[in-house]
């Protein structure tokens, strides 16, 4: 009985992803056909199958070394940036004055071109882990900050009044009311940040690194090795998708009540 239900659930999942998978396959075939029909030089546009075989050859070692390194940077940056953003949101929600003073600077921070800051950090910190983590953190900060602040404010005035009738402390209002009602918003922000963090780490690697997917891609570009570049792009975006889905799974675990998850 339960095996049947389990199997039908798997079928459900498969059916849900089938259309997306079909689009992917159609895209690959179109790519392959286009490259072969137009007869473009392979060093400019490698075909899908060539990239595929490159992935088979180089993928495992790339994943084990460079991608792993890039993801460590991305995840550390994600954790740092999100943590800082949640802290800032807590301060903002309890001290309107501080929010008025600092929020404009958060927007300025967001408008600073990360690609321009990355080389600066590399000059300061060298080919180390630090500039990558900082860039990834910077890029994660804003979406988490905005969403979390909005989440803390998303409570109804009657819920606050109920807590005041119960003479609840600020602390109790924070944990029992603000935190749970902000969680859907926090997760919406974290999901955006998870994909951005990988991009941040790679951009930082472009400006100076001796390992990592960004390093591999930039080195390959000097050699016009487009096959390796495509392989690097595919790997890093696959890692981003996995990271995004891990956060999505955590979200489903944390938000169990009906209509908790915000539509994206």
């Amino acid at each position: 009985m339960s095996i049947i239900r389990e199997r039908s659930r798997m079928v459900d999942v498969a059916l849900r992803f089938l259309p997306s998978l079909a689009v992917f396959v159609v895209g690959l075939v179109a790519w392959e056909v286009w490259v072969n029909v137009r007869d473009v030089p392979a060093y400019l546009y490698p075909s899908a199958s060539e990239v595929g075989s490159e992935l088979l050859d180089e993928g495992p070692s790339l994943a084990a070394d460079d991608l792993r390194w890039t993801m460590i940077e991305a995840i550390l940056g994600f954790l740092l940036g999100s943590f800082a953003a949640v802290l800032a949101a807590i301060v903002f929600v309890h001290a309107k004055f501080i929010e008025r003073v600092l929020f404009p600077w958060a927007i300025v921070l967001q408008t600073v071109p990360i690609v321009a800051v990355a080389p600066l950090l590399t000059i300061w910190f060298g080919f180390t882990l630090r500039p990558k983590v900082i860039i990834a953190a910077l890029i994660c900060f804003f979406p988490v900050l905005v969403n979390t602040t909005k989440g803390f404010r998303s409570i109804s005035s009657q819920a606050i009044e109920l807590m005041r009738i119960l003479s609840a402390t600020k602390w109790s209002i924070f944990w029992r009311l603000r935190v749970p009602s902000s969680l859907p918003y926090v997760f919406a922000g974290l999901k955006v940040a998870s994909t951005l963090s990988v991009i941040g780490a790679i951009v930082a690697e472009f400006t100076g690194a001796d390992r990592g997917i960004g390093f591999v891609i930039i080195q390959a570009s000097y050699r016009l090795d487009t096959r390796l570049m495509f392989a690097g792009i595919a790997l890093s975006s696959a890692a981003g998708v996995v990271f995004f889905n891990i956060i999505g799974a955590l979200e489903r675990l944390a938000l169990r009540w009906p209509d908790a998850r915000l539509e994206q």
Partner: protein
Amino acid sequence: MTTSSGIAIDGVGMQFGGRQGVTALEGIDLNISAGEFVALVGPSGCGKSTLLRIVSGLLEPTSGCVDVGGKTPDEARRDIDFGFVFQQPALFPWLRVLGNVLLPDRVLGRRSPNRGPGSEHVARELLRDVGLEGFEDHYPGQVSGGMRQRVALARALSYDPKILLMDEPFGALDEFTRDRLNLQLLDVCKKAGSTVLFVTHSIQEAIFLADRVVMLSPRPGHVTRIAEVPFPRPRNLEVRYEPEFAALAGELRGLLVVEDEVELARKQL
């Protein structure tokens, strides 16, 4: 059981939004003795919810003052003298029905009247009283609007408040459930001896439940009539078919109609 408190409302006025704002209430005088059940009836926008907020210390009146058993509303609120059933149920969607009823207990902590494992027993019993047995583990998002309102009622009763403030608690219920909960409410209030200030749009409900019915009129909200309800307690539902009941209901309804006509005449000028 808790000893209840009376409420003395003295010349209370409430003005919203500064100089050219709305005057929600003006010159409200009302004395409610301990253990009394008073119903507030009036058209939408006449300041019923505002008055409940002022009495419970959620809102500071712009004139006049309120005394709650010798305390200011704010002091009484800090002493957790009030149970408040809001116009919207205001349940926490991440807590199950039982969790919502247990919320006051968790928030009050050491100040809760029924601590420890006893509190869950009390909560389950209250849910049974309001007809929600079997729904303890549902989320608010999984029950109907009227059921949510009943959860909010159970939540307000869960910590034996001295004073119950109820803002149209049964507005979303069908007649049968409403009748049953009316009887239940009278029963609970008699046992606990709590003072009740009850807002409703239904004159019938007001007369059936209350010792006195206070009629309010809008713009600005003021008291037009305070009617004593002559029926002895305990009351049963049949009381509503007595001629005296109908006469009082008709009289009070006439009050609302007259107000409407005055309003119409003013508009036509």
